[in-house]
């Protein structure tokens, strides 16, 4: 996956492209550039979306949603750092945004688990395919 995405992103962000495979890895270890973070964030996002769409346990779906939020967090921090170096002083807002996202995610988890408990008291299940009173 990353083999497919990295060259594209590197091209987009005009990072210089080492010629050999070992060179790519070595350069990545030496200077983790923006594209690495973006790729990891994109992978987290995709894993999160896949988890939400395929899992049936509500708790696991929650975890997948947290992965999506963390993908956004990682993006924000990586961009913030990169853009500050590139001369955008306002880019520190990205890190501030991340703090807000973490706070909101905590509130969201509290509410979500509260609803799960209310649901479990009445239905004794946390599997989404058993929650089927409302259809079509």
């Amino acid at each position, binding site marked *: 996956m990353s083999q497919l995405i990295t060259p594209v992103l590197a*091209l*987009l*962000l*005009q990072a210089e492209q080492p010629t050999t495979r070992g060179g790519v890895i070595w350069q990545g270890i030496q200077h983790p550039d923006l594209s690495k973070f*973006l790729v990891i*964030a994109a992978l987290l*996002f995709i894993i*999160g*979306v896949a988890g*939400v769409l395929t899992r049936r346990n*509500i708790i696991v*779906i*929650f975890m997948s*949603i947290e992965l*999506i*939020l963390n*993908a*956004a967090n990682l*993006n*924000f921090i990586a*961009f913030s750092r990169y*853009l500050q170096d*590139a001369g*955008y002083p*306002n*880019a520190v*807002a*990205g890190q*501030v*945004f991340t703090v*807000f*996202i973490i706070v*909101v995610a905590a*509130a*969201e988890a509290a*509410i*979500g688990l*509260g*609803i*799960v408990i*209310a*649901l479990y*008291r*009445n*239905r004794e299940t946390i599997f*989404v395919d058993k*929650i089927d*009173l*409302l*259809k*079509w």
Partner: protein
Amino acid sequence: MFLLQANTTALFSVGELQLLAPELILTVCACAVLVMEVVLPYKRGKLTGYFSLIAVALAGASLFAQWYANSYLLPLTGFYGMVRIDGFAIIFKAIFLIAAALSIAVSLRYLDIEGEQRGEFYALVLFATVGMMMLACGYDLIALYISLELMALTFYVLVAFTKRERRSNEAGMKYFLLGAFSSGILLYGMSLLFGVAGSTNLGDIAHKINEVLNAPPMLEGAPTPLRPMLLLGMIALAAGLFFKIAAVPFHMWAPDAYEGAPTPVTAFLSTGSKAASFALYMRIFIEALGGMRADWAPQLGLVAAITILVGNWAAVTQTNAKRLLAYSSISNAGYLLLGLVAGNTYGYVGIILYLLVYTLMNVGAFGVIIALHRRGIVGDRVDDMTGLAQKAPGMAAMMAIFMLSLGGLPLTGGFIGKYFLFGGLLQRGATEQKNWYYWLAVWAILNTVVSFYYYLRFVYAMYFREQPADNRPLALSPALNTALVVACIGVVFIGIYPQPFIHAAQALIGALAASGVVALR
């Protein structure tokens, strides 16, 4: 009243707080409601409801004062560009306050019947209103995200408010899962947008996007390097927002959440939350991404066309009135998107007018469903309307007016809104010389005809079926009656004499269409 600009030395000046006066009033009153809930005995629980109505009225007065102090052609910014009070914000806030007031009025009696007359309900409604109002005036991705979550989180709780009701639990769960998921996608889009622009301020983003799009290509024929990332961000944002407004590929939560939620919450969710999501959509897509109109307008047109089709045809077979109105609300999201596709003054005025009328008629329709709800009777099937004309002629007449207005019959408010939405599309088609705008308008009008079938099913059940469903009296209360009458008068008044509303909407929204950011490409 003087409203001060941001000053650079202090964190913020006291004068800037005036910009947020309506929100501050609502927040303080919502906290007071929480205290009252603890202090008052259970039997007096309703007092908190009346208190929150007063709170909404106070916030409305404060909003009116803001509007009166400044003729609203000049936007005011504060808190370092985080907040921007312009005509757009004012008019949307007015719509949210109307939705909140009507929803509180129709919920007073409903909660009594459900045995859930608790102050938290009203506090949550007020907090959700604060979130919506901040959505209308936020001008920074951080502020917009926080206010969106404030609104969404309170709605998750409100939808699952009747804890002992299984359907309410289930609706809350489904709404929560999909809502949180969509927030995540939205956030991912925001992060990419931030990466392109290097700032979270919408004005800076718009500026940077125009720079990116107009940058000379480095190689002959090569796209601008940041453009793919921008497109990806735009698509993620659009997907997240389609969830929030319940447009078609992402509409699955709406029927379940609307059916299972307590009916007053459904009323508030389908009007206030939808209007707020549209405010967010317009803020982001017109002000920040206005330069990319050529990219998002066709995509939006396609989604609107599918939304209108699916919403209307799925509603035809429904037997549950709340579920039917949920599908109707999906199709209405499609009509409202047409205003954005049109993207001219006509379209924006159409969105404002239609959202206003939609708020009135939808809360009204759900109000009638609430009146049918009694102890032991759910009253939310279309068949429960049978013989309502004999049992309660006034109620039946109002329901008929709401239904005809939802369908868009001339002389009702719904017609005026649809007229402007479709008219804006035709106008855009004429200026851009593109045929698909015309076809989209024709498509929307054809599907409107379908919608009359299911709206008229209510009228048929009420007027032309003999046997009343049951003979027990309706659960009326003064607040419910007042709300219904106000909504009905509003719908008819806007339908018969729309000029003042059109002029107000034009004056308030005109700045949006004329603002330099909106590149008419």
